[in-house]
């Protein structure tokens, strides 16, 4: 007799673990399938953990989760080739528990989360790639794994298989991902003694800093750089819209060339000097936003996390959307099961309603026009960073010129580069795209 589960969860990242944990905790018979050697071995993130989304699943996660540093300071830098203009927000409020967000190392964090999933009663099998979904007509009835006798069946399959969304794509639930809807990010982890991390970033033990960067570092492509502090390491990375690497990249710069340039930027180089690189990663981030979210439910299936495009690129949030959609998918299944309803599209539609009503789709809706506006307006990544840095340099350099003349010069540089109408229209576009 073939073995049948209440639910199969494909993938053991934040969304898959959130789903599997919630389902197992409610007493459902859950099989989770992970292609990596261990959960986390295929997963890449910056990585910032947002406490709220995890608290709703594991309220006391702080007791034993592997957390690096809680964030007390956020820096936003706009860079040209030599300088940066930055705004920093640092608050001692962020030093009062419970902490709001932490840096984490995903390979360790995912392993911990997975342990919780197994303790909750789910069956996890690793080193197993799901090849495709098993269908009975329009209905998903299970998955085929790359193992002998690898067909397994369930009432519902939760697709937490990551940004490439391979299984839904193969099943024809959505088309191939478009290059304008994903960012390609590369990053390195650089090890540095704990005391040096603390001295260089002006923080105490367990306190951390996040730096987000924008400007000439992406050579005119839509993208950002980042530098995060871990316990005794730093994570540095840069990502740009994949299509831009192809279409807005006349120098044919490779992603690792951008990363190398970022590491050598005079504002960054002193912070990472002497650190030892121990891993180099690359990953796609679904940044298409609201309009790029595919159909997320159907007969016998649900899509959660990156696989559903649930990333708020403007705020660099993803793992919290992943955990939240994973939890909501699980709650939908639990409710249907206890009501004795079939796992049909009609039943599972409740998942979409819950996602729509949560911060997940509300936030994606708020920024729905942003990807297109940034795509069509390169000046936000080229002209403005130069203008802002030029303005700061003009204003703060004492050279005998009077301040009125300096201000006139700065105004003139903005007008020459963008024109008065251009400046107003840019401001309007940004306001409209983010209101």
């Amino acid at each position, binding site marked *: 007799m073939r073995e049948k589960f209440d639910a199969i969860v494909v993938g053991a990242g934040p969304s898959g673990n959130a789903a599997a944990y919630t389902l197992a905790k409610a007493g459902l018979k859950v099989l989770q399938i992970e*292609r*990596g*050697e261990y959960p*986390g*071995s*295929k*997963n*890449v*993130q910056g*990585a910032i953990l947002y406490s709220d989304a995890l608290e709703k699943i594991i309220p006391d996660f702080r007791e034993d989760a592997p957390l690096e540093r809680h964030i007390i300071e956020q820096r936003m830098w706009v860079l040209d080739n030599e300088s940066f203009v930055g705004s920093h927000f640092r608050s001692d409020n962020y030093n009062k528990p419970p902490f709001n967000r932490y840096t984490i*190392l*995903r*390979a*360790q964090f*995912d392993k911990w989360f997975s342990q919780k999933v197994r303790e909750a009663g789910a069956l996890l099998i*690793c*080193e*197993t*790639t799901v*090849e495709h979904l098993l269908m009975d007509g329009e209905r998903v009835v299970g998955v085929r*794994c*790359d*193992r002998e006798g690898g067909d397994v069946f369930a009432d519902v399959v939760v697709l937490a298989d990551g*940004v*490439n969304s*391979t299984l839904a794509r193969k099943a024809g639930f959505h088309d*191939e*991902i*478009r*290059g304008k809807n*994903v960012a*390609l990010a*590369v990053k*390195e*982890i650089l090890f540095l003694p704990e005391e040096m991390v603390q001295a260089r970033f002006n923080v105490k033990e367990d306190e951390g800093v996040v730096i987000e960067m924008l400007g000439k570092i992406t050579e005119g492509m839509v993208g950002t750089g980042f530098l995060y502090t871990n316990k005794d*390491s730093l994570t540095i990375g840069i990502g740009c819209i*994949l*299509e831009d*690497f*192809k279409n807005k990249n006349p*120098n*044919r*710069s*490779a*992603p*690792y*060339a951008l*990363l*190398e*340039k970022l590491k*050598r930027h005079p504002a960054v180089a002193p912070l990472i000097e002497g650190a030892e*690189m*121990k*891993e*180099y*990663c*690359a*990953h*796609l981030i679904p940044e298409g936003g609201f309009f790029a979210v595919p159909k997320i439910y159907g007969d016998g299936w649900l899509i959660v996390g990156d696989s559903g495009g649930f990333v708020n690129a403007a705020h660099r949030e993803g793992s919290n959307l992943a955990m939240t959609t994973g939890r909501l998918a699980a709650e939908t299944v639990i409710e249907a099961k206890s009501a004795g309803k079939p796992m049909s599209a009609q039943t599972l539609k409740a998942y979409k309603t819950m996602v729509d009503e949560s911060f997940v789709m509300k936030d994606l809706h708020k920024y729905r026009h942003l990807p297109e506006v940034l795509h069509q307006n390169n000046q936000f990544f080229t002209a403005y960073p130069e203008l802002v840095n030029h303005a700061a340099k003009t204003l703060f350099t004492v050279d005998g010129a009077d301040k009125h003349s300096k201000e006139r010069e700065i105004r003139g540089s903005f007008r020459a580069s963008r024109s008065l109408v251009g400046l107003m229209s840019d401001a309007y576009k940004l306001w409209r795209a983010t209101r």
Partner: protein
Amino acid sequence: MSIAVNVEEKLFQNRYKVDHGRPHIQIKDASICANDCRGRACTYICPAACYKLEGNGTVTLSTDGCLECGSCRIICSEHANVSWEYPRGGHGILFKFG
């Protein structure tokens, strides 16, 4: 200005379990890369430099250093000439930190 970077040096820090003789990504038709594709974007976009433009104008692929991001498949939108699967269970990149 583009900087010359030795990617192999970066990839050397990573842990892999290579599935010898069973590449999970393949170029479907090499003649399309050689004759029909002008951009050959894969040769500079792949973050692990798995795709190489050879002197004779052909593109070759070695998946040993692949980071499994999926970029090559997506950017080959015009010709859809990349056959892309995840490696068999347990194989491929094994991130220590991720």
